[in-house]
């Protein structure tokens, strides 16, 4: 699983996927995740980074991340490696 590198993310949370032409809006934590994924951060490092930066416990974050990744996948922002 990897992020589509061409995804554009604005500072206000506007997201554009040139692959599909779709636009999205995301919140601060969503932006942080997308940027880190673009930078090549793996899931474990991402969890560590977010729990250090935001006031959240690991269990809740893991649950929320699972759901967020599912949505990224369904919007073709995240892509399965074999499809790359």
């Amino acid at each position: 699983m990897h992020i589509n590198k061409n995804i554009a993310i604005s500072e206000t949370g506007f997201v554009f996927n040139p692959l599909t032409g779709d636009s999205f809006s995301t919140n601060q934590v969503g932006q942080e995740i997308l940027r880190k994924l673009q930078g090549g951060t793996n899931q474990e490092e991402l969890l560590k980074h977010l729990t250090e930066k935001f006031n959240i416990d690991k269990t809740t974050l893991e649950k929320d991340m699972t759901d967020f990744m599912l949505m990224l996948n369904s919007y073709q922002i995240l892509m399965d490696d074999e499809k790359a």
Partner: protein
Amino acid sequence: MTKLSYERPVITKLNTGTMNKFGTRTEYAPVTQIDGVPVKKLIADYGSPCFVISERTIRDTYKNAVRAFKSRYPKVQFAWSYKTNYLNAVCNVFHSEGSWAEVVSIFEYEKALKNGVPGTKIIFNGPDKTESDLRTAIENNSMIHIDHFDELYQLSEILQDSGKKARVAIRVNMDTGIYPMWDRFGFNYEDGSAWSAINKIFAHPEMDFVGLHCHIGTYMLTTNAYSVAAGKLCDLAFNIKQRYNKNIEYLDLGGGFASANTLKGSYLQGGDIIPSVDDYAEAITSTILNYGFKPDELPTLFLETGRALIDDAGYLLGSVIAIKRLSDGRRATIMNFGVNLLFTAFWYNHRISPAQEISAQTEDMVIYGPLCMNIDVVRENINLPLLNKGDNVVVHRVGAYNMTQWMQFIQMRPKVVMIGMDGTPHIIREHETLDTMLRYEKMPAHLKEFKL
């Protein structure tokens, strides 16, 4: 280093194209207090879920309705519709404002008596009145609204040789130009049944014919139907005067006024399409006033409106049990209240507000209740701010029918709290416990013990 506040990550697809030309009303503003009492405190003190009723809203709504009618018509009497909400404290707020009681069963009748309503100020409606019920109503000199010929004949049998008189009216059903036409209750106007019933009653001197009653429907969105109904009752009253030289004491236009809840399938919000109480009052009173009664022979106008007087005063407080993602990508939020408590969720899109500060992000979601039953859907689709497990919500306009039609199904029923005029919350109905349920169960001896 201070950590940043967390909000669960969310990404929403932006769609352009089909726009709602009416715009959409947001429901995002948090509701953190009811009549000055913090929602969080109510939940801490009385639990979640919990029904909350505002005494102030009941009184304000009632006074406004009375003003609308009394400023247009000289003789008006409201009778509180017990079936809409028969919690004693609620009934007594209405009674303390001057409302009589309108009941549709002996259970409600006895409740009204126990609340202190004199029998002479109880209207006894409904199709199910046993011989014993009728005897009680005769004894108390209540107004008996006859629903069908079997009841009329039964009443006649009871009264024969009893030396007693009964104060009776008939319920009349009629075509008022709306669909569906409620013709299952009472005697039909158009086919002559109503007039036939009137003639039979006048043939029984032990029955004192005092009034005419109708109840044309519920959640009525047109006031014209009330004009038609009032006109047809006036027509009967005039003919009674002509044939029997009897002035009818009252015309009872029943209830059916809409509340501001939004019906499922309605494109516009309920509050934007319902007539005001003044609109209903104008339609009814102008019809009666213009019909031609002599001023001293004007009948008293009875009203039994329930929903429109109590819906706004009721709130349901609840909490988020869980959030999940459905297989089609939709967000699902599971609340600790469902259709067991919110029976009206079957026909209303209830307004639901978060009870805490929220962020600017919102998402579409379906709201489910806690029951392990597929029918337990509170809102099929609603856009709300991001909710998390443990967050509280406030459901609005739940005062009518929910606290009478609620189901003890899977879950037990919660406390009901009334916030008094001084802002003090009072428990007016305790929550149920396992003991509440087991009190009525009996175990046959051979089933008391078993080995597994």
